[in-house]
């Protein structure tokens, strides 16, 4: 009996507490920076695409919503995707592609407002996915730390990379 009255009082006091409701379309709830929403493709600090078309994201994707095709740039030897397609009507925003990506190219953003009247509009092509900036890792530049030769960066010229050993000089 006493506990019932205590319950009544507790509930009554809640009449004067601030309510928790966020009136969504008018006020946005706080979005954590690492919230897993719409997927983007980012660029290196020098403005080139980060994606090297390694296909790891497409392999990691549990719902197979990523499709891409590798190609190479004739002038500097960089790898890049010829097309890169994410079907957001399949995507479950699990973030496994972001974890799999070796170049920090594919990243998830806090934007969750993916609404289209036509289902086909949920399929995003590379021009929709690619952004101008570097996303979450502003200083990382894959081609400057990778061992692969591209135009303007020969073997041994990458950051934290030693010059190639002349194997013949090691002879006794």
């Amino acid at each position, binding site marked *: 009996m006493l506990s*019932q009255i205590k319950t*009544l009082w*507790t*509930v*009554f006091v*809640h009449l004067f507490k601030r*309510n*928790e*409701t966020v009136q969504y379309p008018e006020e946005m709830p706080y979005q954590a920076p690492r919230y897993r929403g719409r997927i983007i493709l980012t660029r290196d600090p020098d403005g080139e695409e980060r994606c090297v078309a390694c296909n790891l994201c497409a392999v990691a994707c549990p719902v197979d919503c990523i499709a891409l095709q590798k190609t190479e740039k004739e002038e500097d030897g960089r790898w890049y995707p010829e097309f890169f397609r994410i079907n957001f009507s399949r995507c479950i925003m699990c973030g496994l592609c972001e974890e799999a990506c070796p170049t920090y190219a594919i990243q998830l953003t806090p934007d969750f407002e993916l609404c289209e009247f036509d289902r086909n509009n949920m399929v995003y092509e590379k021009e929709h996915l690619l952004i101008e900036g570097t996303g979450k890792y502003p200083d990382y530049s894959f081609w400057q730390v990778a061992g692969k030769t591209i135009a303007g960066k020969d073997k041994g010229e990458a950051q934290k990379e030693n010059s190639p050993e002349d194997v013949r000089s090691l002879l006794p």
Partner: protein
Amino acid sequence: MFFENINWSYVLILPVIGGTMGGALVLVWWERRLLGFLQDRLGPNRVGWFGILQSLADAIKLVTKDDWVPPFGDRILFILAPIIVAGAMLMAYAVLPLGPGLIIADSNIAILWILAMSSLAVYGVLLAGLASNNKYSLLGGLRSAAQMVTYEVFMGLSLLGVVMLTGSFSLKDVVHAQEDMWFCIPQCVGLVIFLIAGLAESHRLPFDLPEAEHELTAGFHTEYSGMKFALIMAAEYLSLILISALIVVLFFGGWLGPQFLPSALLSGVLWYGFKVLIVINFFILLRAAIPRPRYDQLMSLGWKILLPLSLINVLITGAILLGT
């Protein structure tokens, strides 16, 4: 002349029906809103100012819905049940005073009439559960019957103290007898018992066992839709208003209160409405706070505690009346 014979209090019939039905409609919104605030939510606030037109939108939706009668049930009883519920509830308002002199029929058996009508409304619930031919509805009707045989007994007995102090069954006399002291003080036990019985009578949480949407989907009105469902819902809110008004009339002095307006009638009606609103809000607070018991728990509470308590209350009231 026709106009000389007419009883002018009959003019009140239409305003009472319209007012209580409209009040029930507003109450649906108010309850959802207040429940929201009590649970740190907002409640419906989209339709109209602060969402006040929400129940109007709901009403339009209910009226335009398909009025479906289950082919596996008892068609006549199924249609009759909501009419009985709502009709009996509206009939009870005939003897309820609404202010000083504002009463449709000042009956000298008003309390008995209201008890009888609210008991008749339970038949509607029983028939609805039976006619739906659905296990959840039947369970709801069954619980309603079990609940009725429990609370009807001590509901009547709890009011006996008030009747003894007044010496009359007329609600007008009951209010006038409270001019010195409201009956909530000498009859506090009766008030608590009647409050619990009223909760059970109007199927309000925590005693909404016949509906119990978490266990029986919607209990006795699982199969109802459209206007029939609206009628049942309206009857529940009518009974909530009725029980609140009855508590105010019987225990909190009805329209009595300091006269703050030049017109005694208007002041009385405002006091009355204010008190009824407070009691209704208390019922809503109960809904937000108290969990629902099992129906055997309700029955054991009723038969083992509240019935002896109300009998003792009658005994002591009688002894004091005889002694003075």
